[in-house]
């Protein structure tokens, strides 16, 4: 850890003036406050305050090399952020770390070859509303519907040859998605039952992935393969103490065969993504078909996310990817002018048992400031993935200073 900090400091703080033109940086300070009108059985809080400072920088010591670094510093009023002044590198903490090395990687590039090693973001897939093939992208799901990606420590080799790109990824250390805290409203636990987190059993092996992408004349598609572990856990009871259950998070093996495609047609653009998963808990497939269309300043995306479950097993798990399947999903964005936008998002389960609606108004002020105000409505049955969060409808305001 100390070594990582020293590298970061030496790379970015001691950048020589001679290379100043090769140095790029950006960041922001984000303040937000979700307001929940209803209390949850395990969480009586109504108003949260959250602050996030993010700094990103890159330095190119030569034409073939680049170094990237990014740090987060955050705090909140609701203890979703760890109070210890600890600098996280591996993203395995249950709560969000107060300080985190978000990205730290080195890139080498010559001709068609690009190699990046270190903690980095790897995104696969072409769909916008759900990405079944996006296997190297664990997320922070502490607030399930407002999530952020986590980087993974990996080596990535990319070869570009004409219209073909091959991406090979070797992830050396497993990074789990961060799931809701049991004493917070986004963890829905049975009433009169106390759940105690008994830690996690993290897989020790590496994860591998291979993706081939082809650009055709007005279309593109890719095939992908992943062999590793699910970054979303199963819960395994390990002890019972009265009404309290101690559960351990277990991350099962997962193998994926996937593909995605984008075909711009005259009336709309068709994007599709599908993946077949083999797991000890049972095989299943997820797929997305989405259409995009612009009408004036409206940008519309709508589609269906489906699931095919071969085993039909019911496991105690946290799986927002599967939870959002069998649903109609959509997003509409209206650009009012150069400074103002309006966004609407929706997910409706095909059974009608769960619905999620979000609207957001956003306006920038000058070169640096942006304010947002929005409202999220969640309704449905307690047995439904979305419906279980029906007490978590909320309004939110945010203020961001970017630099």
């Amino acid at each position, binding site marked *: 850890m100390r070594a990582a900090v020293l590298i970061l400091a030496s790379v970015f703080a001691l950048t020589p003036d001679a290379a100043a033109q090769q140095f790029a940086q*950006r960041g922001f300070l984000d303040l937000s406050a979700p307001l929940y009108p209803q209390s949850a059985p395990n969480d009586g809080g109504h108003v949260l305050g959250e602050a996030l400072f993010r700094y990103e920088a890159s330095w190119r010591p030569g034409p073939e090399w680049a170094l990237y670094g990014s740090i987060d510093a955050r705090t909140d009023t609701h203890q979703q952020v760890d109070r210890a002044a600890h600098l996280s590198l591996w993203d395995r903490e249950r709560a969000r770390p107060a300080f985190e090395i978000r990205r730290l990687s080195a890139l080498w590039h010559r001709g068609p070859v690009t190699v990046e090693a270190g903690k980095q973001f790897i995104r696969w897939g072409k769909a*916008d509303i759900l990405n079944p093939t996006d296997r190297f992208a664990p997320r922070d799901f502490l607030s399930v519907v407002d999530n952020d990606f986590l980087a993974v420590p990996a080596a990535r080799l990319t070869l570009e040859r004409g219209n073909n*790109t091959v991406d090979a990824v070797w992830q050396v250390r497993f990074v789990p998605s961060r799931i809701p805290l049991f004493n917070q409203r986004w963890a829905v636990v049975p009433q009169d039952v106390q759940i105690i987190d008994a830690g996690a059993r993290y897989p020790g092996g590496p994860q591998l992935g291979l993706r081939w992408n082809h650009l055709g004349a007005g279309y593109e598609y890719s095939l992908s393969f992943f062999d590793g572990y699910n970054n979303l856990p199963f819960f395994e009871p390990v002890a019972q103490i009265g009404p309290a259950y101690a559960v351990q998070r277990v991350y099962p093996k997962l193998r994926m065969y996937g593909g995605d495609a984008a075909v711009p047609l005259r009336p709309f*653009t068709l994007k599709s993504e599908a993946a077949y998963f083999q797991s000890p808990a049972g095989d299943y497939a997820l797929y997305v078909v989405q259409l995009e269309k*612009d009408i004036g300043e409206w940008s519309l995306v709508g589609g269906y996310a489906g699931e095919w479950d071969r085993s039909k097993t019911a496991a105690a798990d946290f799986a927002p990817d599967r939870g959002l399947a069998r649903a109609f999903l959509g997003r509409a964005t209206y650009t009012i002018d150069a400074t103002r936008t309006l966004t609407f998002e929706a997910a409706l389960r095909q059974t009608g048992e769960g619905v999620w609606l979000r609207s957001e108004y956003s306006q920038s002020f000058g070169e640096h400031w942006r304010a947002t105000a929005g409202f999220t409505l969640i309704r449905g049955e307690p047995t439904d993935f979305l419906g279980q969060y029906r007490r978590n409808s909320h309004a939110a305001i945010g203020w961001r200073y*970017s630099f």
Partner: protein
Amino acid sequence: MSKAVLLPAVFALAAAPFAANALADEARRIVEEAQRRAHANSERYEGTLTVYGKSGKIAEKRWRYDRIGSHGNSKSVIRFSSPAEVKGVALLIVNHPERSSDQWMWTPALERNRRIAMQDRRRRFFGTDFSFEDLEERDAGQYDFRMLGEELLDGIPCWKIESRPKETKTSQYDRSIIWIRKDHYVWWQLENYSREKLVRRAKYGDLENVSGIWTARTVDMSDLREGSHTVLRLEKLDYNVPMKDEQFTLEALRREL
């Protein structure tokens, strides 16, 4: 009707298609000459965009523009440097001689690129008055032309030419009218029509000879439906800068911060 009147009329009618063809050929020759004179193997500039709404200036944006290749066979990358919240957002445009361009947008916050659909190109580019399509290079080979005549524009003699996209070209515009300066073969005004209604007008200005190429250093694009306009100023403009194809790929988009 006497023979003296009828014969010239018949000849005039018979000659009309040939005259129209000759005018179309002349119009194409002028546009192609303008394209030839603007030819450069690469181009780089830093663009400053000032967006004016109905009530005055509302935003300023900056980007860096890199292009390799030339009309019909070029690739370009537009990368925002300001305002801070869009710093790093990039657009890759791959132009094709026989069809509409392919475009991808890189969004750093998502760490991924996203293909921009053909029909998406009528949308305003990041709230400016340029649509995604307006950022494409216009290759003469993808349009039919018709000479409309000659006209003084701001006191400068110009050819006035109508262009219509060929069937293979997907465009939001049914037709455009181009004013080309007669002295330097430089585009001086462009009016774009959709459903026979004038929707956008680009006025060019600050003509300067840069590395032997006469170039308008400002483009004032008006969206006549919205009543807003955006002024693009080309700074640090240079042509034939050494560049490599590998700087214009999807991978290259993610290599920059």
